[in-house]
């Protein structure tokens, strides 16, 4: 056995020195990214907090009513958001909302094209699959450390870690949606003279839309599950009171902040989810 442990392969050291090298020679790249992202997110948060809570609550209520025509969902949305205001977590909720929205936006903007590309190129999916598996299963803290070093403390490493964790969902579900476009519909599209671009936008994407929307809701849920971890590297939001509660063994605070996260999760999920019996046909 000794020969096996005699010389350790410096795997960890390689990664560490790679990070060091990046930090040393390309730090301006990462700091620029970090500054830009931070600027955008903080301004969004400022705007959300500046707006009167009632206006935002009304907007959420209206969105629920308009998209789903359900008074139950509308009532739940309005009442539960009022509860958050009452508990005193409105500002933290807005910070989390901004983080989740930007994380989901980045995930979709990168994930959907990647899903489409991999659906059209089986070799790309072969490469992508283990990478996605890795991104989803590797413990978050492991890549939290390098992102912390590269991007500095604050909301940006939180955002990047969230995107790494959540992006697999839209990629996979977009891929699934595109490859399961019924062959009959593809042939119908082709037989009427679609260009490849028309086939994508007029046949494949509409057909994959329910799956892509499922990717979006999953992405939002996964992003929300990362808020506590983001708080550890300095992102503001509902994660902070949870972390603080953990450190001070404050059951009351932990429960209230946790409840606010759950409420936000349920509202976003219900509003984004498409009713399955709507216009989906067979």
């Amino acid at each position, binding site marked *: 056995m000794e020969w096996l442990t005699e010389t350790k392969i410096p795997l960890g050291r390689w990664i560490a020195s790679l990070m060091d090298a990046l930090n040393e020679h390309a730090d301006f790249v990462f700091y620029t990214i970090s500054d830009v992202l931070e600027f955008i997110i903080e301004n969004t948060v400022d705007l959300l907090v500046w707006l009167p809570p009632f206006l935002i609550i009304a907007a959420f209520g209206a969105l629920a009513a308009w998209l789903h025509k359900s008074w139950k969902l509308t009532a739940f949305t309005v009442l539960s958001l009022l509860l958050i205001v009452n508990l005193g977590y409105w500002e933290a909720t807005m910070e989390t909302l901004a983080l989740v929205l930007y994380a989901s936006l980045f995930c979709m903007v990168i994930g959907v094209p990647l899903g489409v590309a991999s659906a059209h190129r089986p070799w790309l999916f072969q490469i992508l699959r283990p990478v996605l598996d890795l991104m989803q299963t590797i413990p978050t803290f492991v890549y939290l450390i390098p992102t912390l070093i590269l991007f500095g403390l604050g909301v940006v490493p939180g955002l990047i870690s969230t995107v790494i964790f959540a992006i697999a969902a839209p990629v996979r579900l977009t891929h699934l949606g595109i490859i399961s476009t019924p062959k009959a*519909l593809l042939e*119908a599209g082709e*037989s009427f*003279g*679609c260009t490849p671009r*028309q086939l994508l936008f007029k*046949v494949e994407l*509409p057909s994959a839309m329910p799956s892509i929307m499922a990717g979006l809701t999953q992405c939002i849920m996964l992003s929300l599950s990362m808020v506590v971890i983001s708080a550890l590297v300095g992102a503001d939001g509902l994660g902070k009171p949870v972390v603080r509660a953990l450190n001070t063994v404050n059951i009351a605070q932990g429960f209230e902040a946790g409840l606010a996260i759950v409420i936000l999760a349920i509202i976003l999920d219900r509003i984004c989810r498409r009713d399955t019996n709507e*216009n989906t046909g067979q």
Partner: protein
Amino acid sequence: MSNAVEFDNIDVIFGNNQAKSLELLDAGKNRDEIAEATGDILGVANVSFDVPQGEICVLMGLSGSGKSSLLRCVNGLNKVSRGSLRVHDGDWMVDVTTCDTKTLRDLRRKCVAMVFQQFGLFPWRTVEDNVGFGLELDGMGPKQRREIVREKLALVGLDQWADKYAHELSGGMQQRVGLARAFATDAPILLMDEPFSALDPLIRNRLQDELLDLQDKLNKTILFVSHDLDEAMKLGNSIAIMEGGYVVQHGTPEDIALRPANGYVADFVAHMNPVHILRGRAIMQRVAKDQRTGSGDLPIKDENIRISLENGIIRAAHDGDLGELKLINYTGDLPTDLDPMDNSVIFVADDTVLLKDLIDMRGITQNPVLLTHEGRISGTLGRKAFFESLTQTASPAD
């Protein structure tokens, strides 16, 4: 009449060893042997025939016989491995096997439209947007499109349903939408891949009738895939019967019914109802050529009847026992004032009359039916030929 589609020695092989498989095909190997040697699937082998403009040609065969594979070559959904496939639209001619993608796309947008077995409608589009799909691809504006779409929907009787989604319609209506979508681009050639197979028999029958009515108005060239011989006989001006990738017989419905080329075709024909297909001229006893324009008395074989001709035109018929027979010209409807089994009358009909109408005539009188071509006698249909045609043992003397 000019041809709309010409199949010229078409082979289709699915797989990656095309050259090797074609070699084996030329060496006379069949589908199973080729699959075993190269892993390729033989789709279509050595098919050559023409489809004249304005005709309905039915490709017939069991599943796996290659009929759909052949159909899909016409608009390039399947790639032809060898041979040439020419599509004509007026003076415009395209060889689908060699043209570039741009030309193929033009062909699909303007010249060849398709109707699918499972309808192939887009569930996220309304009926109107489904029908306008081809026009939309071609860049036509919504206003102009709307007008054409309404017109085509009216053609198939669905103008009230434009704003519904496909799944809100019954199967028969969905396929009417499929038809309207194919008509929308005014493509002169229509490919129909078992379009009515997914429908129940009653609806299928009605859509077949509607298709024939529309065809009278629109005069398209239609390639129609079917596995149902009755459907093929009803719709087809010509029928190509396929087996194992080969066309084993190509001919008129009567050819197929009366002169099956091999056992495979004969098996199909054995299960077919002949009365809607067979015409008088196919089963009659022909009158000798010189008598067709001649004058004088003509005895009918096996019957005690003589007919008097004047330049081939029937003037009178005489029965040995009953004397003079009353001539009745059949023009599509039976006279209602006749007693059943009235042997004092004799029918005269054009020789394209269907067997089912001949049965009606035989229900009124035992006497043979006299058949004419352009007004002059061409044949007679006595008891023997009549019953033989029903059991399909007739072998018409040419």
